[in-house]
């Protein structure tokens, strides 16, 4: 199983917060821009791909114990989001691509969804 650090290096993602918490193994992935859907479906240790970048993303990730959040389409989160992510130890990563492409690249690295064999 890969760690988020391995994934960040292979996909060349920039890490915005909690650089010391990248060593966790990624248990799978989930993608949605709806927070309640992430709440319902994302699993402990998952990486979450979303276009949302406000501080509540961090709250959801911290409550679920996610390995990290990848924010797509090069959106830069507000300073408040990054600060919250640092204090909660939630890694935020930014990718220039669309959600579709990010998920495809994660899948190529072996990251799977919860409803996948």
């Amino acid at each position, binding site marked *: 199983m890969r760690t988020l650090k391995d994934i960040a290096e292979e996909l060349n993602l920039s890490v915005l917060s909690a650089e*010391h*918490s990248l060593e966790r193994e990624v248990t799978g992935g989930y993608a949605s821009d709806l927070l*309640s859907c992430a*709440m319902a479906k994302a699993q402990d240790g998952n990486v979450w791909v979303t276009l949302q970048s406000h501080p*509540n993303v961090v709250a*959801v990730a911290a*409550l*679920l*114990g996610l390995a990290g959040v990848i924010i797509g389409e090069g959106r830069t989160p507000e300073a408040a989001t990054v600060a919250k992510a640092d204090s909660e130890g939630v890694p935020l990563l930014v990718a220039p691509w669309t959600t579709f492409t990010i998920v495809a690249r994660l899948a190529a690295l072996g990251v799977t969804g919860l409803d996948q064999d």
Partner: protein
Amino acid sequence: MRRSALEITKSQELVYELKIGQVMTREVVTVAADTPMSQLKEILRVQRISGAPVLQDGRLIGVISIEDLIKTLEAGRIESTVSESMTTVVETVFDDESVIQAVNKFALRGFGRLPVVSRDGKLVGIITQGDIVRGLLQQLDVEYHEEEIHRYRASHIFEDIESDQTGLLLRYKVLPRDFVHGGEASSKLKRALERLGADAQTIRRAGIATYEAETNLIIHTVSGGEIIAEIRPERIKVTAIDDGPGIDDTDKAMEPGFSTAPDWIREMGFGAGMGLSNIAVCADQMRLSSKAGSGTRLEMSFHLQGGERVRTR
């Protein structure tokens, strides 16, 4: 894996937080400037030290080390005095400086020890790399024990406090439209449950449901609301209360996907209409009562797992 990464940053943090005065050795063996090297040899041997600060009239004027002693022995000048062989340009550190200052000086100059002086110039101790390692380990240990004690005390609260029914009441205020602090009440409740020793599954369920209730208060209420968690050894009951605007049709509100959130809130990813149904999935019991124009009361209960319930006798 994650733990070791955390510990590295912890010790880095401590190197900055700890003061030299906290880790230095206070009982410093010093020698006078006119001490013969033959006597120094005995002092180093008996005290099992490898060097000592040299004082004259209480002032620090140099440092003499075992290497200096070896050089004088080789030169056959064992009867010379300490002041003739000591290092006179003395690098010192202050007792109120952070340990990182000493670490840097050790690394840059290759010193084995540094005399520690107070701001008024008095010698107050000596610091070696060994002192720093010992100080860091001790501090890590202290902090680890403090968290252990927190957890221990918290997890025994139901044993330590006797009553016919002991419960713990936690109250969190939630402000309307305060998305920046959204999730704080549920995070705090989650942490409290962890300290109380609740099982991971129940913590997760209670955390998710409370988050959704908290988010509802932020999105929909006129003047905010309150989240009240009542923790008992066998179950957690979380109640979210507000005083308006109230829900027209609670059955409709419970339908997955039904939402009354305005567009600007939906654009942030809220208001998917999944909040109440998420709560229904997570909670063991749920009761929603509301009247349009007055307020809403949402009650959620979570049974703690049999063997791993909040510790009780």
